[in-house]
């Protein structure tokens, strides 16, 4: 039996091993769609990155401190972000919650066009071209959203587009609670 005829079956079982591992991990209670972030309860990772709209200015992790904010990781090539975006725009119009965007692995003109076309809900848009900061944040895929409190501690993470239900049932109550705790109105 020549080795090259065995190659297909070897490749196949290597793939099966990975699938089995993933299924095992899901079976152990890990929800792939909602990866619990080990960062919850920890301070946001340090970063200093240029802004999307003003490339000569930077935004650092220090600037997240002082008020509760919703940090949203997005990209113009991301399909699910399109589902989510109108909701963010609506939030920015109807509430005073500060939404900070991290634009992930995007071309600047594409991202700018997106904001121009679809509305810009972000108080500041951080431009993470090589995805370095997103890796530190443990970003699994776009979109992802984090709630960061006044001390710059990550309190909540949501993977995938935010739904209206999720927003009303979890995100808004948590933000309100954090604001009260921090004495913010």
């Amino acid at each position: 039996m020549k080795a090259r005829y065995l190659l297909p079956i070897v490749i196949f079982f290597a793939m099966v091993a990975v699938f089995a591992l993933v299924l095992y991990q899901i079976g152990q209670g890990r929800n792939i769609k909602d990866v619990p972030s080990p960062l919850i309860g920890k301070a946001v990772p340090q970063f200093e990155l240029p802004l999307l709209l003003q490339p000569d200015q930077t935004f650092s992790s220090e600037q997240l401190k002082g008020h509760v904010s919703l940090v949203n990781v997005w990209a113009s090539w991301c399909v699910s972000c399109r589902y989510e975006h109108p909701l963010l725009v609506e939030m920015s119009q109807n509430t005073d919650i500060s939404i900070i965007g991290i634009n992930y692995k995007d071309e600047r003109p594409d991202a700018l066009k997106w904001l121009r076309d679809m509305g810009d809900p972000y108080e500041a848009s951080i431009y993470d071209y090589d995805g370095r900061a997103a890796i530190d944040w443990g970003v699994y895929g776009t979109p992802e959203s984090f709630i960061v409190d006044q001390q710059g501690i990550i309190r909540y993470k949501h993977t995938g587009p935010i739904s209206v239900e999720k927003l009303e049932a979890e995100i808004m109550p948590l933000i309100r609670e954090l604001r009260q705790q921090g004495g913010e109105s």
Partner: protein
Amino acid sequence: MIPEIGHFALVLALFIALIQTVMPIVGAYRGMPELMAMGKLAASAQLLFVSIAFAMLTWAFIENDFTVAYVAQNSNSALPIQYRISAVWGAHEGSLLLWAFLLSLWTFAVTIFSKSLPEHFLARVMGVLGFVSVGFLLFILMTSNPFDRLFPAALDGRDLNPLLQDPGLIIHPPMLYMGYVGFSVAFAFAIAALLGGHLDATWARWSRPWTTVSWVFLTVGIALGSWWAYYELGWGGWWFWDPVENASFMPWLAGTALIHSLAVTEKRGAFKSWTVLLAIMAFSLSLLGSFLVRSGVLVSVHAFATDPARGVFILVFLCVVIGSSLALYAWRAPNVKGGGSFELFSRETLLLANNVLLMVALATVLMGTLAPLVLDALGLGKISVGPPYFDTVFVPIMLPLVILIGIGPMVNWRKGDASALMRKLRWIIIVSVILGLAIPLMAMGRTTLMVTAAVSLGAWAILSTAQYLRDRMVRNTGKRGLSAGVYGMAIAHMGMGVFVIGVTLSSAFSVERDLHMRAGDSVEMNGYVFTLDSVTPVNGPNYRADRGQVTVTLDGEKVAQLSPEKRTYFVQTMPMTEASIDASLFRDLYVALAEQREEGGWAMRVYHKPFQRWIWLGPLLMALGGLLAAVDRRYRTSAKRIVQARQKLSSQLADEGAKA
């Protein structure tokens, strides 16, 4: 009672499938004709019982039987009747039942068109198909029974996902599944040939029409899915490199490679073991696709309900089916003798290049789809792979493939004549480049290097194929007409050219504007003036909507009246954008209502997309070509001739017996 009848029919079908697996295989092994004949019988019985199950589930949907959990989850009494029927395959359980139903349909089709197949071979084919069916029926009965009752019964159903309430989605899944499941026939032929040890040109000839027909269904299914995404998702995109899309695209790439490789095996006896591997691969990727979609291991915007228990079952099933076929391959393929020899410049080599390119393309899609999963599972970090990866990696692989389209058919088997080919093609090269410049300039008034290069390639595929057809006709004068297969191949190849031109011009020159418009406002795009006349509320059967009226004029003349809607469905309260599109051969005008603004007026999305239709016209031509090739007379005449020869032989034997 109705659901219980359906459930019972499924259980019976499972036992029949077991008989269909065991009896003919044992019969073929022991040489017992009566056991082998049971395969055909069991296939018919299985079709009957799976059809009954399918009909019962459909009936439960039509009758709004909300005591059935699956109906309650996916239907509603206000849902229009056509969507109540299509809701049968609107979610996991019903999709699987559709799979099983289509599988029994394909199996039955094999028994009908099998008159030319030797008894042993047919018996093994039935056995393999029966085995696949056992797997699917077991899967349905053990983890995903669509007939489970719901106590207490629901007062009304939760309704079908509004995204799926669309004419395109009524036929998209059946088409796609016909393609997936159809590859099981080519697969069964390959396994039967490996089992019997007769891997020859005849086997390839039998496989070709079946493979091509499945490929046609898959092509139409994918094109329909893309068309649906284009108008239903409301943002004008037509392909997203989403894992679920990739899952259907990978078997298509393997199937395309298989069609070309089968041609070499049939005509020249070469690439036999490779062809057999491709047949296994095409079907394995269909199964893999369903595993990825149904098990929840991949995160996708298609967001199907997922369940690890189902994932485990499919994975075990994959191991048994694919693992055993690949083991059989590793065991038997080394004994396969090579075919006729060929020189470096020959049609064999070019088809080999086609296969290599398609395999590289397949590998890039597979890697892009699985890499995030693999890295994450091994704890090597998390990445997400999106269109930037696929566009940069995939497109460069496709371009040489399009160049090959023009050359391949004109080169002779065994030994081609490169200089004669050059003489013949140089004018086509020049004309293609001129068209590459002229088409974008005439349509849009501008071009870029990339656009000209890509349009030239598309034109090249069309023109060189036309040249090939002309050559064949000239050579054929006086004889009977060209075979359907030649026309089929030519049309499919031209379809590829049409597709390339469409993708290029649409992606390079589409204009998209997001606007805030009030009644009476106008916007101008590429010469077209879009005016929002009004937005009025309307009521649908299970939704209410705001409907805009948009008049489009060109040079002061009205060219289209569009009425986009923003719908809110009563049960699933999900806002849906129903885009309104005026389509023509050279441009689409596309308007979608985004949302109502508090300050009055509407946020709207307006597109002008040149050559958008060509993106689907191309695949339709490919499918049409495939259909023509599959009905080529020679598949039937050869079958008839074999039967006649066999009858003649047996009557001769009988005569001799009588004489003696």
